[in-house]
């Protein structure tokens, strides 16, 4: 006959209480540490984003045509390039995520700058980045546009016009090449080369750039580079932002013209038509019309007794 032990397993209340309360405290501690680590990561992302904003300030050009700086990050970094067109100027939005213990940090922190225009892929990854800027004049200086590329990605300019080759040589940016291009580099062809061989095709006569089957239009070399280095959606929205700023500057020049007329200056420059065209721009395909109007006001300004710009 089997005699079973009927006493069973007994836990005292003190033990039960200790286990529950101890578990709760441990959970709180682990949760707290995780939150602090996440916050630390977000702080680093925000800090890096703001540092990037600070670094972009010296890129404001005076009379020089273009300049490049190297940005080195301490760890593998992803720069997410976003934009917004709301408000008078829209905003450039940057999100930074960095690699930590083999994992990319998640961040929802946006670093916004309304006075910057960065053209790049939607996500740029690496430890070293090249930042190259160029003034966008339309016909007066509107902004310095910034091109952001990873040092890991090479761009090969094939059969580029002499002015572009000269400019790229002067810039001396390691990942922008005009000869001896590595096989895996992004090939940018100008007019003559067959399309199939190229990743990006630039048609200087039409003022268009074809990339991944999408065509965008440009005026001036500053926007040509912008179309080459950025993705279609970003390019179109940033062009819209540039036109927003053009419109705001036109407002300033309008007021300046009134002030100058008080000093006896004749109002030689009619900005009304140009402003209405700038206001009605839908996408980059409308740029040609804006450029024609810009040329008209440029001629008027060059001939004016009191130049507005």
């Amino acid at each position: 006959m089997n005699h079973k032990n009927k006493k069973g397993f007994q836990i005292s209340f003190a033990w039960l209480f200790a286990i529950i309360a101890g578990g709760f405290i441990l959970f709180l501690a682990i949760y707290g540490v995780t939150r602090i680590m996440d916050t630390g990561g977000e702080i680093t992302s925000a800090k890096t984003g703001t540092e990037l904003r600070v670094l972009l300030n010296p890129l404001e050009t005076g009379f020089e045509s273009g300049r490049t700086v190297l940005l080195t990050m301490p760890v593998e970094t992803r720069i997410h390039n976003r934009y917004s067109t709301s408000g008078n100027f829209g905003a450039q939005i940057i999100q930074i995520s960095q690699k930590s213990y083999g994992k990319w940090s998640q961040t929802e922190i946006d670093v916004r700058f309304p006075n910057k225009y960065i053209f790049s892929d939607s996500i740029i990854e690496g430890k070293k980045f090249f930042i190259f800027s160029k003034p966008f004049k339309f016909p007066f200086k509107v902004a310095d546009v910034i091109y952001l590329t990873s040092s890991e990605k090479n761009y090969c300019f094939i059969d580029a016009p002499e002015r572009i080759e000269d400019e790229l040589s002067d810039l001396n940016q390691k990942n922008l090449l005009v000869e001896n291009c590595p096989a895996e580099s992004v090939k940018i062809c100008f007019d003559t080369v067959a399309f199939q061989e190229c990743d990006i095709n630039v048609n200087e006569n039409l003022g268009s750039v074809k990339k991944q089957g999408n065509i965008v239009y440009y005026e001036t070399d500053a926007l040509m580079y912008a179309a080459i280095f950025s993705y279609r959606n970003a390019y179109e929205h940033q062009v819209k932002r540039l036109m927003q700023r053009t419109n705001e500057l036109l407002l300033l020049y309008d007021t300046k013209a009134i002030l100058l007329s008080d000093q006896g200056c004749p109002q030689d420059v009619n900005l009304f038509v140009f402003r209405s065209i700038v206001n009605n721009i839908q996408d980059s395909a409308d740029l040609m019309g804006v450029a024609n109007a810009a040329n008209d006001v440029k001629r008027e300004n060059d001939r004016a007794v009191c130049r507005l710009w």
Partner: protein
Amino acid sequence: MIVLYVDYGKKMVTKNKKAQMKMQQMIFMLIALTLFFVLVGLFLIMVVFSGAKESAALLEERDALLLVSKLANSPEFSCGGAFGGVKINCVDSDKIMALKSNINRYSNFWGVDGIKIKKIYPEESSVCTFENYPYCGEIILLTGSGTGVSNFVALCRKENIEEQIHDKCELARIIVYYGG
């Protein structure tokens, strides 16, 4: 009605008292432990955030310093070719007055607390308005307090002297305020 009298006995009562003591000890211990963790957590958060605050202040200072050195060349301030040839660190005074009248459209555009341009020579103390311009000494674009950083610029405008339009440039300082 049945009334039950239970006699726990002396031994049982002592055991109960001992258990209660132990439970109280444990509760106090657990409260102390929780408080300890909370305090450590608060300390950590304080360390992390004070570092962030310091970094933010430092970045703000660097931003203002770099901005002030380049602000004169930005499209809203620069002379461009209005005074013959492209000049660097040249601020168009007429354009600044135009900017002053539209400054509400530029809220937080430069990310600083205040911007003003102060004439150094010839020295004048009055603040510029549309009534006294150009015979004034200080154009306040953004009123702000805090630490100021400055850079020397040429402040240029058109002036009518005996029915002739002339370019007139004066020495000025552009001051950017941050951390206010």
